[in-house]
């Protein structure tokens, strides 16, 4: 890298073509802002492969600058942005959603003047999000039926954000339910007792159905219902004695039952 030369230094004729110092050149090209943005994104998402991440970042930037690309490219770029932060990192996640929304809106702008994302793109984004989150088609389809939009409809930002957040949270939820099933099953290779599974799911449903009231009171009441002592009590009542030969519930059924509890609380899009 060339050494910095102070602006206004004496220059020879041969170097007069480069009549600006390195610092001016960099500021004109806007490179410092570019690098700053790239480093911020890197720190926000902390990927395992920083170099690959930076490569993807610059590739996306250059393809956006071309202002071309098919809808499929737009969706994949939007998905890449959405994968940068976990939904628990609230502000980073929200800003990524905003960027993805802008990308998808611009993609369809040529055809119609209405703002918002085309329904088809929105549905496609949600489907890819679910599959990237490890959800199978059968698990995700009841959820998608509730929140997807028709192809011709135009999705505003609030709905877009809500849909994306719901899918991300649902993916985490299903993963947790798989851990729960593993905890309830006495051995990794044997399915869990049906009565135990039902008791555990009933505890969760009771906590979710806590009556409306002030938020704090509701949280306290729900957390009292799922404390370890209450859970132990529920399990002991459901499974007294040591009969190991009772009917069992397999992992898929448990997952579907847990998913149903979540999906029942998702608001349908109208």
């Amino acid at each position, binding site marked *: 890298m060339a050494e910095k030369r102070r602006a206004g230094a004496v220059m020879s004729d041969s170097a007069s073509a480069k009549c600006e110092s390195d610092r001016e050149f960099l500021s004109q090209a806007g490179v410092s802002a570019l690098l700053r943005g790239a480093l911020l994104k890197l720190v926000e998402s902390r990927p395992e492969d920083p170099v690959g991440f930076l490569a993807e970042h610059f590739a996306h930037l250059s393809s956006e600058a071309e202002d071309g690309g098919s809808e499929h490219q737009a969706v994949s770029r939007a998905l890449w942005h959405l994968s940068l932060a976990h939904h628990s990192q609230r502000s980073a996640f929200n800003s990524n959603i905003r960027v993805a929304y802008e990308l998808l809106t611009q993609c369809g702008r040529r055809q119609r003047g209405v703002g918002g994302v085309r329904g088809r793109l929105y549905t496609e984004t949600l489907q890819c999000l679910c599959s990237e989150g490890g959800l199978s088609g059968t698990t995700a389809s009841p959820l998608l039926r509730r929140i997807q939009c028709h192809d*011709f409809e135009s999705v505003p930002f609030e709905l877009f954000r*809500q849909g994306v957040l719901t899918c991300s949270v649902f993916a985490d*939820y299903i993963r*947790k339910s798989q851990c729960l099933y593993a905890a*309830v099953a006495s051995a990794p290779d044997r399915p869990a007792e049906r009565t135990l599974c039902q008791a555990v799911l009933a505890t969760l449903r009771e906590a979710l159905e806590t009556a409306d009231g002030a938020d704090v009171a509701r949280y306290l009441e729900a*957390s009292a219902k799922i*404390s370890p002592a209450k*859970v132990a009590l529920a399990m002991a009542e459901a499974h007294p004695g040591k009969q190991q030969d009772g009917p069992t519930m397999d992992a898929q059924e448990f997952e579907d039952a847990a998913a149903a509890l979540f999906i029942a609380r998702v608001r349908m*899009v109208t």
Partner: protein
Amino acid sequence: MSAEAVSCTIKSPVALQIGDAVSDSSRPGVYITDITLAEPVNIQEISFKNYYTAYLTVRLQRREESSAKWVTCLRNYCLMANPHAEAGSHDYFSIYRQQMLTEPDNVTTVRLILRQPSSEWLNFSIEEINIYSCAKEDSEGDVPAWLSTLTPVEEPLDLNGLPDPETVSSSIQQMWALTEIMQASQTAASIGRFDVEGSYDIKLLSYT
């Protein structure tokens, strides 16, 4: 603490004077006001606005098993530190049951004895009298049901063969928290699927 005052009838003040009330021209220094309560009340608080009264004595008539007894619950309570001066003349006062000499329970009548020894003031009284009763017993004992079940069970549960409740509970808690996050982020935004320029008409569904 109840927010509403108990309904009561306040009689007009009676002046205590020596001599004939009609012919005597001197101003009285003592007024007596009676307040009758519709039903026996356990008094929590008596609040009023002062108007140049210097000293207040409160007597209560309590309903006991067979008889009605008069007791003094506040004697010469000073409302104005200097009866000749303005301080305290227009103040708001509250008298709580803790300040009273006897328990103001089952009270049927309240008698307020107002004294103003100074000759400065033409008239004196107290206004806006409100009597508040004690809070009901069951509202104080109104503990939510789940709170009373928080204490751990005394005898240890037989957890033979059952999964570890700590792990199970922690997974359930996280699932519950994720559902709450989803519910909290639900917005009322709609896509206007059935809107026709803002109105809902099922015969005129349009594709916008």
